[in-house]
């Protein structure tokens, strides 16, 4: 046994010494935490893990920069004759990966595909392209889109990959599905997908935009679900870049060959209370819960300190955000919390269940919350559930308290209306406040940004003071990379933006 092990060790060492031929090529090897789920159809895939590749393969008409400004992508410019009409001028010489030149007809087809119920496209909602009435190709390079009603964030929403422009021929050749096909215009084309192991995208030489052209011959995404395996792979040079877990940041602090890259996400983690169930229908209880939380402590434990105290419109949404630290319920005040509990008739507390799942930070948040709510007499049973059960609780609105991590999107129409407007599909609390609904409608019906900000801020404050959620933090996202990697500047708008990124080996 010992001998065998020795032989094995010797073998491994020998292998370690032989340089991998791969490293000679200009390939970015990227260790990711999850495999692409389902495939790469930009219109029907919601999995974050698949978006990493979709982002390289497809383009949208417009993009949004870090400061939430809409910038050109496939459309070089656009005009808005009236509040419901958009005219886009497309870039010239845009080629699909099939080699065919993209025309206005393809844009028209893409939106028709999104709007066709048979596609089951995720963009077929007013958060994205759902409000489109007609799409007309005025000529080969001009597209006119008319909306059914005013939708202020429409332009920004077009930057979502759900609104990608796709190649009609490829769709039709593949029986209407792009899951395993590539009908994009992006800088990289879909290479090989070895499920549960790796996905390769290859440089597309005819990319229309010189600046955004592929800088690598290929990007290879390696599925390394285990965080420590990812780190080991990076350290040994098996990969150049990994999705990092905050727990491993300390370990590479003194490692000269590894750099840490991060950005502030537009996600937030927090507690969603079921406002239609006792005792959470009592505002006093909800206030008490908010006051019982020590958000800094949760950030310390569940995010290793790498998150900002946040509301449901995180600071990364810029001017839309409300400074929550000023909110009276954001500072822990156990005394007041207990007093509110007593006032609500729960001097001796109560027992409740909290559903967690999907992510370590969600689970850990639940565990810390269990401790903190214990301080005001609420006995919390943490239910760590499997993905399917979690989604069931979400879709069935069936929970007492649920810890969620949601994306706030790039506009409050997502951050506020999508989650809190009466009847919205993501309003899992079945929260209903007439004024909030009204404000949301007002804000979407005007394109005046100042007005919209005013409406949304009022709605945000109503929700905050109603205490229907107890949002904790907006996490920072981390990457670890070999120092050879240069120019990688991820942002909340585009976390996997590899344009201009190089490796200097």
């Amino acid at each position: 046994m010992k001998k065998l092990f020795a032989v094995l060790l010797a073998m491994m060492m020998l292998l370690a010494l032989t340089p991998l031929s791969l490293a000679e090529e200009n390939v970015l090897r990227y260790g990711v935490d999850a495999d692409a789920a389902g495939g790469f159809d930009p219109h029907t895939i919601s999995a974050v893990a698949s978006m990493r590749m979709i982002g390289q393969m497809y383009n949208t008409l417009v993009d949004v920069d870090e400061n939430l400004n809409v910038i050109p992508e496939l459309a070089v410019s656009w005009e808005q004759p009236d509040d419901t009409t958009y005219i886009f001028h497309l870039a010239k010489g845009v080629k699909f990966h099939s080699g065919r030149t993209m025309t206005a007809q393809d844009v028209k087809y893409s939106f028709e595909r999104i709007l066709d119920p048979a596609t089951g496209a995720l963009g077929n909602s007013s958060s994205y392209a759902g409000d489109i009435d007609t799409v007309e190709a005025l000529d080969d390079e001009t597209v006119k889109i008319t909306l059914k009603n005013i939708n202020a964030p429409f332009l920004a929403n077009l930057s979502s990959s759900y609104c990608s422009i796709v190649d009609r021929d490829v769709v039709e050749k593949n029986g209407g599905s792009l899951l395993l096909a590539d009908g994009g215009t992006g800088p990289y084309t879909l290479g090989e997908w070895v499920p549960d192991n790796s996905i390769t995208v290859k440089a597309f030489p005819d990319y229309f935009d010189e600046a955004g052209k592929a800088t690598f011959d290929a990007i290879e995404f390696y599925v390394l679900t285990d965080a420590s395996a990812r780190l080991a792979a990076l350290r040994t040079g098996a990969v150049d870049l990994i999705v990092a877990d905050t727990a491993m940041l300390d370990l590479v602090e003194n490692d000269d060959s590894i750099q840490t890259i991060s950005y502030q996400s537009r996600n937030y983690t927090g507690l969603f209370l079921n406002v239609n169930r006792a005792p959470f229908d009592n505002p006093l209880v909800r206030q008490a819960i908010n006051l019982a939380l020590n958000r800094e402590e949760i950030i310390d434990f569940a995010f290793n300190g790498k998150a900002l105290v946040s509301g449901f419109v995180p600071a990364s949404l810029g001017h839309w955000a409300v400074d929550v630290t000023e909110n009276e319920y954001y500072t822990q005040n156990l005394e007041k919390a207990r007093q509110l509990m007593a006032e609500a008739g729960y001097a001796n507390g109560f027992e409740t269940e909290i559903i967690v799942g999907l992510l370590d930070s969600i689970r850990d948040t639940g565990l810390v919350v269990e401790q903190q709510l214990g301080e005001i007499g609420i006995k919390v049973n943490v239910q760590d559930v499997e993905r399917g059960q979690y989604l069931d609780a979400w879709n069935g609105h069936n929970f007492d308290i649920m810890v969620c991590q949601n994306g706030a999107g790039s506009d409050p129409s997502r951050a506020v209306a999508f989650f809190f407007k009466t009847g919205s599909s993501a309003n899992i609390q079945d929260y209903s406040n007439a004024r909030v609904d009204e404000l949301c409608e007002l804000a979407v019906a005007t394109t005046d940004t100042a007005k919209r900000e005013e409406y949304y801020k009022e709605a945000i404050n109503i929700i905050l003071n109603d205490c229907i959620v107890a949002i904790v933090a907006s996490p920072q996202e981390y990457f670890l990379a070999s120092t050879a990697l240069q120019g990688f500047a991820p942002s909340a708008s585009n976390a996997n933006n590899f344009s201009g990124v190089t490796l200097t080996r």
Partner: protein
Amino acid sequence: MKRKDRPVAGRALPGNESILRQLWRDPMGRAGMIGVGLVILMALLAPWIARFDVAKMNSKAKLAAPGAEFWFGTDHFGRDVFSRIVYGARVSLEVGIVAVGIAAGFGYLLGMIAGFFEGRTETLIMMVMDVIFAFPSILLALFIVSALGTSILNTMIAIGIVNIPVFTRTVRASVKTVKSTDYIANARSIGLKKMKILFRHVTPNVLAPFTVQATLALSGAILTEASMSFLGLGIQPPNPSWGSMLSDARKYMERAPWLVLFPALFIILTILSFNILGDSLRDVLDPKLKL
């Protein structure tokens, strides 16, 4: 000169010596007994042994190394690993014992029925057992937990179901052996009910393989629970089980090796003890292996 009329099977046969004493005499058996005893004792006395609340977090002592205050160090919540190990013994043993209990109970019943009725009933039962056995145990357990929902009870049920076939097979084999022996025929000719005879004779006969099987299945259950924790379907937090502690510790393995070391050590020791005990028990209970 008094003639003593004694039955042929004398009193002082070494085989009739108390099983525990025989186990104790074998050094391996003794080691196993001590190990198992310690773990059980630890589980029973957990509230007195544990030094801190297992769920109590301490932001000032995150990932503290083992020392005077925290004997086995702390985890990323600043929770005392020693106390969690002690309470973890409870959860891990509970999972093991209840799961094996479920498996043994159903296995006994199904084995009895299969062995007793033969024919179609038997074929059906054994086919179901084959199907369960054919299915990779971790996947099957995951399947069951997915269907029933995650909870400690469901974990036990899942691990229990996975282990039923082994017990069913053991019992069925014993029933068949007993059925073929003469004394069943004799007893039947006296007019005793068939089922009653079977229960009376099979039970002592299966006891030996059953006990051995149970000790082995128990360690298997502890391991399965650990693997399920790894795949995210284990014990509900904040209850510590050794498996879930080990699984949670992976991220911190490098920075806080004690988080891996201690749960692993206790799992190893427990499984080692149960297996050694099971092996020795087999040697003691199985007369064939004796001289």
